[in-house]
């Protein structure tokens, strides 16, 4: 178990190095620099040149890369050219938002998707099955941003049930401990703050959940259908076990194996959706920030964040594998 973790973490190093090289080559190809992003209409060639020189962007890419490595060695991610703040701070500021969003989204997807898929499979060809399957298919085909817009239009603007944007109400000045609005509320006992944060999360996370939900529904369904015909299920039946036992212990438990992997991968890929959802709901998370960073040629942020995302992605996969080894004795690492 531990050896697996260590090995994976070691594998991470070359991956990240490779990634950083690619990133720098890419950045080098990006036209324009941060200067004109900062100055807008007011930019003139001379100004731009001066700023770029100040930022050392006039130097060749390998020099910049070397500087970057040196900084990384000192655990310094550099400074955002957009906000002039340390990348790390920006990150601490925004990452929690995206995490909260993604977690809730995946939570919804699982909580709704698994039962739905399971019963769909049980009553194969029944109305539930048909609606679940077609529903999930449609779910995949709706552009996330459109869904987000509709949700906002209906539930925030027309019905006013949920707030239409942001992470917190202005009224509430919640004390921030961890940056995770919901968690903070609980920690500080400001439960109204937690609740407020949750209401802000619901619409975006639903929008974000649409695709994972659809995937999970169909995965679960397929997986259950497959397991139902397995020999050991027949054995269980032959033992005359109660339905509940057969389904719970023998069907569902095995059917969950592939779903777990899927959930992991989905969580990793949520960020794409987050870019759109966050910009529709002005939800100050990583997704939207990286987009701005690309527009503003905010190199340090791009490098820092993308590296970090890669890290997170790998860690998620690691977690999945560990979880997998826990529920499936066959792949247990001795």
């Amino acid at each position, binding site marked *: 178990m531990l050896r697996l973790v260590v090995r994976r973490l070691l594998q991470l190093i070359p991956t990240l190095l490779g990634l950083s090289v690619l990133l720098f080559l890419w950045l080098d190809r990006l036209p324009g620099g941060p200067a004109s992003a900062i100055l807008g209409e007011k930019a003139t060639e001379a100004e731009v040149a001066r700023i770029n020189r100040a930022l050392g962007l006039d130097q060749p890419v390998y020099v910049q890369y070397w500087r970057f490595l040196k900084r990384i060695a000192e655990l310094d991610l550099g400074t955002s050219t957009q906000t002039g703040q340390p990348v790390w701070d920006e990150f601490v500021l925004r990452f929690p938002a995206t995490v909260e969003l993604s977690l809730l989204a995946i939570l919804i997807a699982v909580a709704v998707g698994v039962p739905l898929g399971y019963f769909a499979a049980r009553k194969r060809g029944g109305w539930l099955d048909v609606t679940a399957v077609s529903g999930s298919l449609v779910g995949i085909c709706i552009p996330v941003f459109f869904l987000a817009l509709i949700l906002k239009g209906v539930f925030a603007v027309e019905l006013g049930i949920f707030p239409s944007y942001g992470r917190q109400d202005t009224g509430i000045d919640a004390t921030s401990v961890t940056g995770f609005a919901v968690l903070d509320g609980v920690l500080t006992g400001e439960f109204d703050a937690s609740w407020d944060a949750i209401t802000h999360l619901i619409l975006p996370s639903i929008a974000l959940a649409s695709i994972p939900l659809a995937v999970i529904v169909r995965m679960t369904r397929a997986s259950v259908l497959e397991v139902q015909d397995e020999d*050991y299920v027949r*054995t269980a039946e*032959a033992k005359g076990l109660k339905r509940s*036992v057969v389904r719970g*212990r023998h069907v569902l*438990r*095995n059917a969950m194996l592939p779903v777990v992997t899927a959930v992991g991968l989905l969580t990793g890929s949520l960020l794409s959706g987050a870019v759109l959802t966050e910009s529709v709901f002005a939800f100050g998370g990583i997704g939207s920030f990286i987009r701005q960073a690309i527009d503003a040629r905010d190199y340090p942020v791009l490098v820092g964040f993308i590296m970090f995302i890669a890290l997170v992605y790998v860690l998620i996969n690691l977690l999945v594998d560990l979880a997998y080894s826990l529920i499936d004795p066959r792949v247990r690492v001795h």
Partner: protein
Amino acid sequence: MSLLTVDELTVTFGGRGRKESRAVDGVSFEVDQGQVVGLVGESGCGKSVTSLALMGLLPDKGVTVGGRAEFDGTDLFTMSRSARRDLRGSKMAMIFQDPLSSLNPVVPVGVQVTEILERHRGMKGEAARKEAAHLLDRVGIPDPTRRLKEYPHQLSGGMRQRALIAMAVACAPRMLIADEPTTALDVTIQAQILELLKELVDQEGTALLMITHDLGVVAGLCDQVNVLYAGRVVESAGRRELFAHPTHPYAHGLLGSIPRLDAPRGEPLSPIRGSINDRIAWADGCAFAPRCDRYEMGCLTGTPQLTEPRAAGHQVRCVNPVLDDAKAEEVTA
């Protein structure tokens, strides 16, 4: 009166748009208390389907079961689902072919044994675990208490099959159905397993329906043998009688196709031509005709009936049975 009476059992797959195919086509046989009955035939002849039908393990959709099967005086097919459930595992148990795939990979062996005790013998916790250990010990699994905690993939093939048997006999069933219990195992283990089964049957007086394509197994174990072909019994007799005088050309062929030590040197084996796929529907005539050397027009006019051409209780379904062994040899040669 016998423990299990199967009468004109038919199982038809299909419907749902796909064309119907009849897997079991009017099988009839009986199993008495403590008797070991063999159901013999090449793969695809409907043995396994028959057993599943008897256990009530065939899917509800796309399958129709016909005929009667009376177990201990009650008709299995008219019985309520729940009643059937109670019957399964307690009075009627089954052992499957592939021990690995027949065990749940993610549940410890112990649980898979105890769950049946909990279900049918109302045992709980420690008691159940003790009994489970005892059962494993009984089927000859060394160090049972440790094994209980292990997962199927950690056991050897033989042990898995033993575990399955342990589950099957956990509630001392009246009747045990074994579907090719040994085919997935290597020879030495096969022998042990057969031994185990035999001994269980002797001790408990359990009836055993042995489903196999392996005549060796039959010879070793069965009192009564039913030879199945294309979903119908073509010959039914006591073990000795059958082995001495195989009368249906198919049975005859089967026996002819296994090497015999007592056969004269250099005599060639006589395999049966073709495969079970080239056959004709029983309705049109003898399904075996296409592969048979002895068929004539008679074979192709309607279903042949069971007769006792040779001895009482030795039923044969053939228009042109092999009565004179010598002649038979020469034909098959």
